[in-house]
C-alpha cells in the first residue's frame, strides 16, 4: 500500500490504521520508520514534488521483493509543503519474522533514499529552494548530456 498526501502526514492516524488493519494477519513484527522535518538552517519546512508513475513502479517492485520473504511493505509520503516538526514520510514492514523485518526496513528506507523519484526543496522565506546538495543522482544519469 502506497499512500500520497497533500501536505504533512497524520502520523497517529496512519500508524494506528496500519496496525489495526494488519494485527490479525499473523505477522509477528511490525516495524515503521517515520521521518520528521528537522528545524535547521533557518528553514520553515520542506516541500516535495513526486513523479507518481515511476514511484508506483518502484514501490510495486519492492512489494514483490518483500513478498518473496513473506513480508509486506507500506509507505506514506507528502506532496507539497511540510513544516518543521511535521512528518513527510513513513515506511513500514510487516513480517512473520523479526530478523526479516529489521533487515527489510533498512534496505527499503535506504533504497527509497537512493531511488524514489521525489524532489525535495527547502522552504526559506516563502520560497522553494531545490535541495541539490542533499540529492542523489539516479542510475545512468547524464546519458543525454553533451558535456564531458
Amino acid at each position, binding site marked *: 500500500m502506497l499512500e500520497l498526501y497533500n501536505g504533512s502526514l497524520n502520523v497517529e492516524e496512519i500508524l494506528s490504521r496500519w496496525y489495526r488493519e494488519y494485527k490479525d494477519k499473523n505477522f509477528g513484527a511490525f516495524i515503521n520508520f517515520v521521518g520528521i522535518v528537522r528545524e535547521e538552517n533557518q528553514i520553515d519546512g520542506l516541500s516535495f514534488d513526486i513523479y507518481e508513475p515511476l514511484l508506483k513502479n518502484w514501490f510495486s517492485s519492492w512489494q514483490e521483493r518483500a513478498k518473496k520473504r513473506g513480508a509486506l511493505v507500506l509507505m506514506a509520503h507528502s506532496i507539497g509543503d511540510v513544516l518543521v516538526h511535521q512528518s513527510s514520510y513513513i515506511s513500514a514492514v510487516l513480517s512473520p519474522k523479526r530478523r526479516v523485518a529489521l533487515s527489510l526496513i533498512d534496505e527499503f528506507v535506504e533504497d527509497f533514499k537512493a531511488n524514489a523519484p521525489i524532489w525535495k526543496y527547502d522552504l526559506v522565506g516563502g520560497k522553494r529552494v531545490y535541495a541539490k546538495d542533499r540529492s542523489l543522482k*539516479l542510475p545512468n544519469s547524464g546519458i543525454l548530456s553533451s558535456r564531458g
Partner: protein
Amino acid sequence: MARVEFLGPIEREPMEVDIKNLKELKDIFKDDEKLQEWLEISAVAVNDTLVSDLDKRIEKEDKISILPPVCGG
C-alpha cells in the same frame, strides 16, 4: 510525436519531439547550455522505466522523462 517532460526542479514546459531514438534527442539538446547543466546530472525514463541506452528506439506516443537528482523522505 514523442513527449518530453522535465521533472522536479528543472522547471521547463513539456515539449513534443519527432525522433527515432534518444541519440536524436541528445542532439536536439546539445546547444541548450542551461539544460545541459541539468542533463549532466539527470536520469532518463521512457514510459516510466529508467533507461541506460541511447539507442533505445522511441515510438510515437512515447513519454520521455528527465529526472534530476532525488531526495525523498
